[in-house]
């Protein structure tokens, strides 16, 4: 059980109302999370940081645990397509301004019909990362209201950052490069249509 002094509501300095960063080292924070989340494993890395492997179903509670302990800078969310293992690996990067430590929280989700709980409720920053991953990898994030089109406009193909997406094949199929007459474009934009 984490002591009450780690409570987020107490982290605002009463007099000035300013933000005071909490100072809990990554190892201790990881231990606290390990106690609460069944199935989680921690690993000491050779770069000196802490890595935590958690079941994908508990990602929301893991994130709020870390946030409560001062890991309130959501650095990034990375999706890695592990095509050989038939998995997507999601890596949540967290940083504590007080303890000045970085934590990797890793979780795997199946590649078929991928979906993982959104952490937007805990970390508002995640909203854009999840939006991008939805578009580039096709991973769904139930709970994120903002999974709208991000970068790819009028995109019909499969999610392009997946390992089995062949960029060259896609371009050759979609666009007829030799006659400079892309099939997908309206006639007025093509060479013939512009005449």
């Amino acid at each position: 059980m984490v002591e009450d002094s780690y409570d987020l509501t107490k982290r605002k300095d009463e007099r000035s109302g300013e933000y005071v960063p909490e100072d809990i080292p990554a190892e201790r924070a990881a231990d606290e999370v390990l106690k609460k989340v069944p199935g989680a494993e921690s690993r000491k890395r050779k770069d000196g940081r802490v890595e935590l492997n958690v079941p994908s179903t508990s990602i929301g509670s893991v994130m709020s645990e870390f946030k409560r302990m001062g890991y309130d800078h959501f650095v990034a969310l990375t999706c890695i397509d592990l095509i050989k293992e038939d998995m997507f690996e999601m890596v949540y990067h967290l940083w504590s301004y007080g303890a000045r430590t970085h934590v990797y929280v890793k979780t795997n989700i199946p590649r078929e019909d991928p979906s993982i709980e959104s952490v937007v409720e805990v970390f508002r920053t995640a909203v854009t990362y999840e939006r991008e991953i939805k578009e580039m990898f096709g991973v769904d994030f139930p709970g994120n209201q903002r999974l709208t089109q991000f970068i790819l406009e009028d995109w019909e193909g499969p999610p392009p950052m997946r390992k089995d997406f062949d960029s060259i094949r896609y371009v050759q199929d979609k666009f007829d490069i030799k006659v400079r007459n892309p099939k997908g474009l309206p006639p007025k934009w093509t060479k013939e249509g512009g005449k």
Partner: protein
Amino acid sequence: MMDDFKVTEIIFGPQHPGIHGNFGTRLELRGDLVYRARMVPGYLHRAFEKLMEQRTWMQNVAIVPRICVPDPDVNEMAYSMAVENIMGLEVPDRANYIRTIILELSRISAHLMGLGGIGGAIGLYTLPMWTNGDRDYILDLFEELTGGRVYHIFIWPGGVRWDIPDNWPRKVNKVLDHIEARLPEYYSLFFESKVTDARLKGLARFDSRWAVDHGVTGPNLRATGLEVDIRRMEPYAAYEDIDFKVITRKEGDGLARTLVRWYEVRESIRIIRQAVEDMPSGEIRAKTPPPLAFMVPPGDHFARVESSKGEYGYYVVSKGGKFPYRVHVRGPSFTHGIDVLEQILPGNEISDVALITGTLDVCPPDIDR
């Protein structure tokens, strides 16, 4: 009551002189007040992250600086740091000092460009002329050292490409003297102007708690009073040996953000002078495999660098072999360029939209990648 007003939708950018880079904003206006804002990135999307998976480790060094045009060297640095960490390479001291000089020169040039952009957004067109003119002297230094004005491709995994020429530090000092002498002039031109006070004071104000919750980093976060700087928190290059001050302001508004940038230019000048002074002699590159046979053992590392816009991170995953398995770029604008802007623009006048984007120093290329 508000529903009686007509809602006008305006596409602000990418073809607007006030917008920063190739970046669009879809604004819904009631009168001249922004009611809703939606960011439209993607005009610069060149699929770098996908491309990097199909290029060798060393080819990628030439790709990464393109991700941030005004401040390209942080990309090379973060990428190199990630690769070095996975490979276990020890970078020689001299290379670290040269890297520090390069990174700080790049920071000055990016800040000068950013300050000019803010001056342009309030109609003070003298400032962009001055700052961009002085920035050119820094580009001249880069050209002499690296051969490139904008993209330098000078920082490599293991060190730097080559040693600095003998007379180069003297020229650096000369340029720094010039810029230092110009800084008070910028101050009296820009910060002592009544227009600046009227336009920037209290503009898009947020506090440190809100900023941390929304992933704001770098000068924008320091302008809210929080003393955070990756150069101090997780020192890289030669920053551990160098004495510098982390610039903070309390106000958290547009003026504070701009002032932090102005003071940071002065601080960068101090850092470069120290690095030039204390430059150790020795090797400039660790022993690395030849570029065509450059292999990285399996592993992953997140390397972070303090850029002129905020936290720049590279998460590099290697499964062994000649190509990276995955490279994820965490650009600072990815957080404060999309979600933060969408939340702070509503309620502001349309004339302030370009100014707020400028004071936050949004750099669209690192959103798109």
